[in-house]
């Protein structure tokens, strides 16, 4: 366990997060797959193309999807940006099929799914001897203002009419914003974690600490988002309102806003969940269009993207605020399942609650070794010599 993880709840949540994260071997496999794909596209199309991951793979918040009470294959979102083309020169349909046609050839045609709304999906089956495969969603797009911004124009196919139009996104700017939100914690944890990986890694072998890429460093924000997403998946998979499941982007954006550079996953999760739960009072007390994370004016909801002009909560008001209600019910349940037992000391069923709400096993020996005690107190493990520390008195100050 890297340094800094001290109390029993802190140890527990680090362990949970570790279990939810994608295993290094699978990550490498996914990376290999999309790098091969990028090479193939470039040589087939004879066009310069930028291929990069977006979404949870890029943010380091990937978890194994869980739907209909089952673990599913990993989803990888891949941006395929034709950076020599522009949306003035071609139609969204052309762009969509430029990529589609390239994928309809050997060997990719065998794993290519039907045309999606915005993507082409490749279904990589599980390798022999393994249980998990990948879906790689390839998102064809062109830059909006090449050399000026990282914003992309992507194609959107209307389900009913079959017409294509442009939509906009900016995954690179989002990544930059996200990194900024966790920078302080990242800087503090980087060296410790890299040293820990260097000394303990079995799946990947590094010759030096410098060789370890930054993406191997996991901040408590990333781990808390993984736990939140997993709890959400499990919670909604057994509910009748699975279509009200809050999208990952909402969880990611709210968490990143609420995160206060805590250095352990438990503390980060506490801050984030309590922060989210506070907005439940919006039902009673509107905050008409203030610069708040979630706003509700009595009619419509707003959770804004930090980088593009997009409201993630656009449909929250539909069906008598079904999605808004579902979101706050879920947050409330998560707090009950994971956090309140520690705070109140009602730990009798805690192991079951954690395992059941995350569908993730924790070994009994590990759980018992934590010695979670009934008042959630910190267990003091270091010697405590008597020290006269207040003569002279040294009052705290700030630079």
């Amino acid at each position, binding site marked *: 366990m890297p*340094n*800094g*993880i*001290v*109390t029993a709840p*802190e140890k527990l949540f680090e362990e949970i997060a570790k279990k939810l994260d994608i295993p290094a071997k699978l990550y490498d496999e996914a990376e290999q797959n999309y790098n091969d794909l990028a090479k193939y596209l470039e040589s087939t199309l004879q066009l310069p193309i930028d291929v990069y991951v977006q979404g949870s793979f890029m943010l380091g918040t990937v978890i194994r999807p869980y739907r209909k009470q089952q673990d599913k294959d990993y989803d990888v979102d891949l941006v395929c940006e034709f950076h020599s083309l522009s949306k003035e020169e071609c139609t969204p349909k052309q762009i969509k099929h430029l990529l589609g046609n390239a994928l309809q050839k050997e060997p990719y045609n065998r794993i290519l799914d039907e045309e999606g709304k915005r993507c082409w999906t490749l279904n990589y089956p599980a390798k022999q001897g393994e249980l998990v495969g990948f879906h790689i969603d390839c998102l064809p797009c062109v830059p909006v203002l090449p050399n000026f911004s990282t914003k992309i124009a992507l194609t959107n196919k209307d389900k009913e009419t079959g017409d294509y139009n442009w939509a906009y996104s900016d995954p690179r700017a989002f990544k930059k914003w996200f990194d900024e939100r966790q920078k*302080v*914690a990242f*800087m*503090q944890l980087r060296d*410790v974690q890299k040293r820990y990986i260097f000394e303990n890694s079995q799946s990947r072998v590094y010759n030096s600490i410098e060789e370890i890429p930054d993406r191997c460093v996991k901040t*408590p924000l990333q781990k808390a988002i993984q736990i939140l997403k997993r709890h959400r998946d499990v919670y909604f998979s057994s509910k009748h309102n699975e279509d009200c499941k809050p999208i990952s982007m909402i969880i990611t954006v709210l968490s990143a806003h609420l995160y*206060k*550079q*805590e*250095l*352990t996953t438990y*503390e*980060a999760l506490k*801050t984030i969940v309590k922060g989210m739960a506070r907005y439940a009072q919006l039902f009673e007390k509107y905050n008409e269009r203030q610069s708040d994370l979630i706003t509700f004016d009595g009619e419509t909801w707003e959770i804004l993207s930090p980088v593009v002009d997009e409201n993630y909560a656009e449909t929250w008001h539909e069906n008598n605020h079904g999605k808004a209600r579902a979101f706050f019910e879920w947050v409330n349940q998560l707090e009950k399942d994971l956090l309140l037992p520690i705070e109140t000391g009602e730990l009798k069923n805690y192991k079951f609650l954690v395992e059941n709400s995350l569908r993730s096993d924790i070994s009994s020996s590990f759980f018992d070794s934590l010695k979670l005690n009934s008042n959630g107190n*910190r267990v*003091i*493990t*270091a*010697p*405590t*010599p*008597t*020290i*006269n*520390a*207040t003569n*002279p*008195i*040294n*009052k*705290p*100050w*700030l*630079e």
Partner: protein
Amino acid sequence: MSLKKIENEFKELSKIHTMLELSVSKYELVIQGLLGFCTVVKGEKFIDEYAIKISFPKDYPKQLPKAFETSGRIANQPENHINPSGSLCVGTPPKIREILYPNYSLTDYINKVLIGYLSQYSYKEKYGKWPYGEMSHGVRGIIDYYKEEYSQYFDTDDKVIKAFKDLSTMKTRPKGYIKCNCGCKKLVKNCKYQKLLKKIRQKEEDYNLYIDEFNNMGEE
């Protein structure tokens, strides 16, 4: 004074604080791990431990060490006295130097400076306020420190600022047998003000830095 000395001292110290580890690199010396203590704050006994990391810079004590709490227990908020970089503001630099002067020993840093801060934090966690108050942020706190510590000389901000300006122009070894120009009508070697300046200079490595900040403050 060198990091070698800290390294040697660490051997002694780790007999008491057994859960601390030392690592030395080209640029710094880092001590980290669990630091436990039993202290008395305002008459109340506090037994506690913190996960900490202290980094001693290569040019210690010219630069003071930076201390961090690494478990996130002390939330990164200004009211907890955490710098934007995440390091703990354990006290004003002149106060820390006063505590450490002249040996700048590791034991004093850990036991008096750091545990001093941490045990006050334990108190704050329990009662919601700092037991002995807190210093104003930034340069304001430094001026207040001098006004508190040398109240017989410094009753106004200007006097502190002037002293630092005098310090910056003071010769390394001032001639003692000339008339002092502070207005005391004594020889330099008998002037109390000159003695005070010398005393501050001995302890204060950063006085040049403060002068700029004092000047900026005047402009605001």
